[in-house]
């Protein structure tokens, strides 16, 4: 049986008196696209931020390749975290930096990256994502769709093995949404990274996902393949897919 790349075991998280995660069990498998669906405010982004270490759980265990993260050496955790990349819901682009500088930032802050190599990598991503010609522009001068592509380019420029997408299509029109989904799918096939997507784009997101998990009221109510989710008899899952209250 394949060992999950990342496994959440009974993860709980409170913010002051508010219980956000009430004992999450979730497995993320390497080389696959896993999508986390669920109502707004159920803690999907909080769950995603646990994966990259931006938020620490109050209790429970996170396993990396089957090993509890707290038992891993500092070096191993560092290596694992360097393989991760995160695309924020609101892009989190640096508004005082140009598009080129934004994409180059994860590399330019590293001592061992020569400038010409950074330029090659950034220009490659910009070419691939149709951003050529915007190098000297600032984020405020770009459309919502272009900002998403810049955020994606920045997430991809370090050649990560795992990319976490926090609602990558929020605020985009249906055409741009489809483009972003296609882009994620194509890139995932090309670079074979592991993707975890938090999304509300149902049923479109099912077309690119291999695994689906549904978070509801702080726990994972469903986890399985997209075929499983579509054939599920769970009232909550079916109601959510139909856009109705359970």
């Amino acid at each position, binding site marked *: 049986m394949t060992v999950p790349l990342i496994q959440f075991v009974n993860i709980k998280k409170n913010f002051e008196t508010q219980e956000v995660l009430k004992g999450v069990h979730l497995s993320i498998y390497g080389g696959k696209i896993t999508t986390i669906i669920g109502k707004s405010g159920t803690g999907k982004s909080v769950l995603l931020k646990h994966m990259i270490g*931006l938020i620490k759980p109050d209790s429970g265990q996170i396993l990396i390749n089957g090993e509890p993260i707290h038992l891993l050496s500092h070096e191993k955790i560092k290596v694992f975290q360097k393989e991760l990349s995160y695309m*924020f819901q*609101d892009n989190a682009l*640096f508004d005082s930096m140009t598009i080129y500088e934004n994409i180059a*930032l*994860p590399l330019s*802050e590293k001592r061992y990256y020569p400038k010409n190599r950074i330029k090659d990598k950034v220009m490659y991503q910009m070419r691939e994502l149709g951003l050529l010609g915007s190098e000297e522009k600032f984020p405020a001068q770009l459309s919502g769709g272009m900002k998403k592509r810049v955020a994606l380019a*920045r997430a991809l420029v*370090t050649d990560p093995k795992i990319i976490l997408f926090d609602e990558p299509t929020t605020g985009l029109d249906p055409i741009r949404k489809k483009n972003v989904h296609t882009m994620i799918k194509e890139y995932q096939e090309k670079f074979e990274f592991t993707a975890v997507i938090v999304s509300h784009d149902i049923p479109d997101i099912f077309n690119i996902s291999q695994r689906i998990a549904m978070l509801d009221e702080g726990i994972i109510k469903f986890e399985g393949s997209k075929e499983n989710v579509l054939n599920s008899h769970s009232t909550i899952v079916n109601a959510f897919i139909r856009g109705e209250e359970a």
Partner: protein
Amino acid sequence: MVTNFFEKTGEMTIRQVRSCGRLFLFFITGVINVFILPVQFGKIIEHTWFIGAKSFFVIALTGVFTGMVLGLQGYYSLAKFGSEAGLGAAVAITLVRELGPVLTAIMVTARAGSAMAAEIGVMRISEQIDALKTMHINPVRFLFTPRLIASIISFPLLTALFNVIGIIGGYISGSILLGINQYDYMDAVIKNIDIGDINGGFLKSFVFSVVVTTICCYRGYYTHLYSGFGARGVSMSTTNAVVQSCIFILIFDYIITFFLV
């Protein structure tokens, strides 16, 4: 009621102790990163230009009017004792020891310190600081360290500028407008200012640069913890940064003066 009082006092104490610890760690991380290679030359130059060069005009304007007021007030006070010739000394000593470093720090806080707190605060609420963490970039090194170095370079230079322009301001009101002999004025300035006064002033401006930058960057960095998210949170953290910086400038001014005199 009594339990409630103790509960609230305890809660507040824990919050204050935590805040002090957080501020200390923030400061220490920033200072340690000054010595970690590579040196962030580009960012240091950019911030020195913003904190130092762009404050030139406001410092010059404040300096000249402060000097002119000192000249005017000093002249009429000294005239009562027939000691107008000592005006140069009074203006210069007041500026170099006290007003130069303090007013420069307050003016730079108002102009650049508020901007630091607001900019970093906006970066916090728009998740740019989280983005730095996900890119394995130390946000304190990236945001605070270059500003700290830039302030340490800029504050003493701006203080020196303030002092010189202030002395010229005193000369304008004392000699040109009120008729004190210009040689007497300059002679009193040169004879009564020694290197100890200048060093003391620079020591103050160095301490103020560290205090102002640390408080302003810290307030912006932890906007979400103290002032909440959103535009209101940023405006609150900016206001707090400026008010606290000004208070600490005056507190440290007293402490340093106490040890210098």
